[in-house]
């Protein structure tokens, strides 16, 4: 518990961290609670098409008279969902590959690292596009899986390097000599060394998932059902909202994407500044 408070307290003295985490939590709440409180059906078509913001439609409507604010709230929800899901998949894959490599060494290490380097060199968004193009029906989950499958390599490499350097430290030898079980060794000695790094990577993976979804959607390969921030942008592009000056249609989803990903970036970098002794400000 003392460790917890020594770690958390300096974070909340950092102004940037507070701003970042507040913006992120705000959007998280908008995504979770927004659709429950703002009960407008985002798919309902009305005759008020392409209306600028008004009292009735706070963010205006699109070509089919659908309410943009309702779309935005549902979009934030799905984009966060896809981001979290993709990030979880990447984190699990990266941890498995990285720790297996570090623990097993030898041929397992060589094979896994060769595989990791191949995926690392191959542009993940292109493979995601290719795979998505063969799927006629794409659920939110399918999109998250496609994106999560390819963003783990650099994390696996970092975990491997970190674990390898840790397992040769004295305190780990001492724990082994003291007869710690493997599980206790992992939980007490190894996990804490990668915990902050894993958390920061998780944050970046969420960003990767949200950006990836937007990219896939814009190219026409987003989720085939539901509403996401990427799909909103795609509809806006298809309906030439930009060149026809319908700013209330394409600006909100982009602002949401930038606010979520940038606030997460700020959270992750400030954590790095606080926890990483080499970056700590004198």
């Amino acid at each position, binding site marked *: 518990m003392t460790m917890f408070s020594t770690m958390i307290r300096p974070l909340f003295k950092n102004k940037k961290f507070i701003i970042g985490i507040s913006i992120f939590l705000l959007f998280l709440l908008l995504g979770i609670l927004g659709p429950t409180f703002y009960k407008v059906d985002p798919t309902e078509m009305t005759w008020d098409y392409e209306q600028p913001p008004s009292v009735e439609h706070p963010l205006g409507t699109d070509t089919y008279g659908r309410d943009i604010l309702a779309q935005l709230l549902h979009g934030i929800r799905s984009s966060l969902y896809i981001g979290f899901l993709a990030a979880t998949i990447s984190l699990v894959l990266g941890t498995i590959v990285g720790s297996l490599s570090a623990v097993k060494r030898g041929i397992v290490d060589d094979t896994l690292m060769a595989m990791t380097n191949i995926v690392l*060199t191959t*542009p993940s968004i*292109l493979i995601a*596009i290719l795979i998505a193009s063969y799927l006629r029906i794409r659920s939110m989950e399918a999109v998250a899986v496609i994106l999560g499958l390819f963003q783990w390599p650099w994390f696996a490499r970092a975990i491997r390097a970190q674990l390898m350097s840790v397992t040769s430290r004295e305190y780990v030898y001492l724990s082994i000599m003291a007869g710690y079980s493997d599980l206790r060794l992992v939980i007490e000695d190894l996990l804490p060394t990668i915990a902050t790094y894993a958390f920061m990577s998780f944050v970046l993976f969420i960003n990767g998932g949200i950006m990836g979804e937007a990219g896939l959607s814009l190219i026409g390969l987003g989720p085939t059902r539901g509403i996401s921030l990427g799909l909103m942008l795609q509809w806006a592009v298809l309906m030439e909202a*930009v060149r026809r000056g319908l700013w209330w249609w*394409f600006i909100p989803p*982009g602002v949401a994407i930038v606010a979520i990903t*940038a606030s997460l970036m700020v959270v992750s*970098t400030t954590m790095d500044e606080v926890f990483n002794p080499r970056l700590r400000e004198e």
Partner: protein
Amino acid sequence: MFRFLLRRFIFLLVTYIVATTVVFILPRAIPGNPLAQMLSSLSQVAQANPEAIRAAERTLMKEFGVDKPVLVQYGEFLLKALRGDLGTSISYYPRKVIDLIVPVIPWTLILLLPATLVAWILGNTLGALAAYRRNTWIDKGVLTSSLVVSQIPYYWLGMIFIFLFGVRLGWLPVQGAYSQGTIPSLSWGFFVDALKHYVMPFASIVISTMGGWAIGMRVMVVYELGSDYALFSEYLGMRDKRIFKYAFRNSLLPQITGLALNLGTVLGGALITEIVFNYPGTGFLLFKALTTLDYPMIQGIFVILIASVYLANFIVDFLYAWIDPRIRLGQEE
């Protein structure tokens, strides 16, 4: 140095073979027979002429070689891909995929290469400057704005630009790579026209990639300035500028590796930017191929893009080996 490059070359070749294998396996492994899908999309494209559909059907069957064993299909696929034979397009039947891709590649290169390089140079300079002036307003300004700007998708920034400078202010053309009705030529008029179309897509890629480089470079220089050799030089009384120069040069190496690793992401973003701008490059062609489910074309574009990313990786490796004295002199691999 030669051994380093040879090893990298072999690695990239193996990676290319793995990637093309994925391209080969995917349509065969995914349930729902993509070949049937291709034929049905074919009949949508060319409704008018049943004779043409049948001809296209025969070509497709032959190209996919469905009657042969899988291994033979695979061998033929690899050989063809190496020879540059990427099959026949469905939506532009009977034109060859390669003949459709080759003309659009220069447009993508003209946009992507200068934008990536300019962003890399500007970003690294800004990042190094921020680290040098650590904890001043310059540092804080660069860091904060880079954090936000690096998260703006290029294509969305492009949309904002189109809306602001194209639609509202009317300063710049809102789409394409040159005005409709003009034919690309080597005249002054065409050059000016193309340049006007170029500004916005170029700027949106440069601005949103720059931030990432600045953040990376800043951390790297801060690390270097805190390392033993920098502290030692400081105790020796060496001028700050000189120490900074060493730190800067040492930090550039990882940024070069980063350039290689980021090429794919930048390419992906640029492809989508092309769609937003209706810019006649590879991304736009890919988009059209995706909307018509023109699988031979999708595969072809994919094979070429992947190959170019690997080739660019190799060029970066070459540069790296040339710049890093440890590799150039063969002391360390």
